[in-house]
């Protein structure tokens, strides 16, 4: 199914992202009710959580492409892994920023080291940020692609740790919305959340494909320059 997504034109992806995210904004502010406990500040949930889940998805996709590179040496898999991790880092930074803003209004502080969810997400973010330092410290070629792929695969272990940390360690500060009993919110809130997540996933996919197209074009131009020189 994911392979079929590749055949959808980029314009359709971008239009889908704009439509979904526009609908999500309308649902968040005009359809979903105001939370009785947190009030208006709960509206941050509709972008903060989907952004975090999108970051996980990007890191997971990057690791899957890295695995494909190591297993089959699929052409372009290394570049795809790189682009996905780059998107993951962008969405990871946004998760930390929107989370800090929400923490300030909810807990009265920008950050707390006592929340396992926050700390494990920060570790995940820093781990994948270091990916670029590793990648650009090695000359381009098969060695760089292999090292980057191994590093990307190691990082994916941190995703379930980050996701499960609040459930395992009884984190009382960071709220747990999705439990074994399902989402702890009303149907209209959950619908707005799902549309927002779909919009952000479509946005990430669009950005990923644009970045990938740019990187491929860059590589082909470099090849052409060498031929013409």
């Amino acid at each position, binding site marked *: 199914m994911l392979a079929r997504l590749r055949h959808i034109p980029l314009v359709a992806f971008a239009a889908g992202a704009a439509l979904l995210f526009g609908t999500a904004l309308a649902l968040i502010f005009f359809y979903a009710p105001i939370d009785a406990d947190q*009030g*208006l*500040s709960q*509206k*941050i949930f509709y*972008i*903060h959580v989907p*952004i975090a889940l999108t970051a996980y998805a990007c890191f997971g996709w990057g690791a899957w492409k890295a695995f494909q590179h190591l297993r089959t040496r699929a052409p372009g898999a290394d570049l795809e892994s790189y682009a996905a991790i780059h998107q993951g880092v*962008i969405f990871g*930074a*946004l998760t930390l*920023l*929107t989370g800090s*803003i*929400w923490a*300030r*209004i909810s807990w009265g502080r920008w950050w707390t080291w006592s929340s396992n969810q926050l700390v494990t997400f920060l570790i995940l973010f820093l781990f994948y940020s270091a990916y670029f330092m590793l990648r650009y410290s090695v000359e381009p070629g098969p060695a760089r692609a292999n090292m980057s792929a191994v590093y990307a695969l190691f990082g994916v272990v941190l995703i379930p740790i980050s996701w499960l940390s609040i459930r395992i360690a009884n984190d009382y500060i960071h709220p747990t919305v999705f439990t074994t009993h399902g989402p702890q919110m009303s149907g209209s809130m959950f619908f707005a959340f799902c549309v927002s997540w779909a919009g952000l996933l479509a*946005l990430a996919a669009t*950005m990923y494909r*644009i*970045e990938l197209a*740019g990187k491929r*074009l*860059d590589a082909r*131009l470099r090849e*052409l*320059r060498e031929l*013409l*020189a």
Partner: protein
Amino acid sequence: MSASEKYVAAAYLVLFVALLVWVVIIAAKLARLERDVDELAELARRRVERQSESEEREEVSV
């Protein structure tokens, strides 16, 4: 504007600004790629000119 409204606006603004920054970076990359294509087109044009000149010289020497 209440404190909650300010923080909600700030959170959504962060996403909007990040998107804008990304668009600016992509626009800069696109401009660089355009310059590269122009440069390569110029190189290819010169090569074709040189090739046709050398072919003409060969014809004269025969």
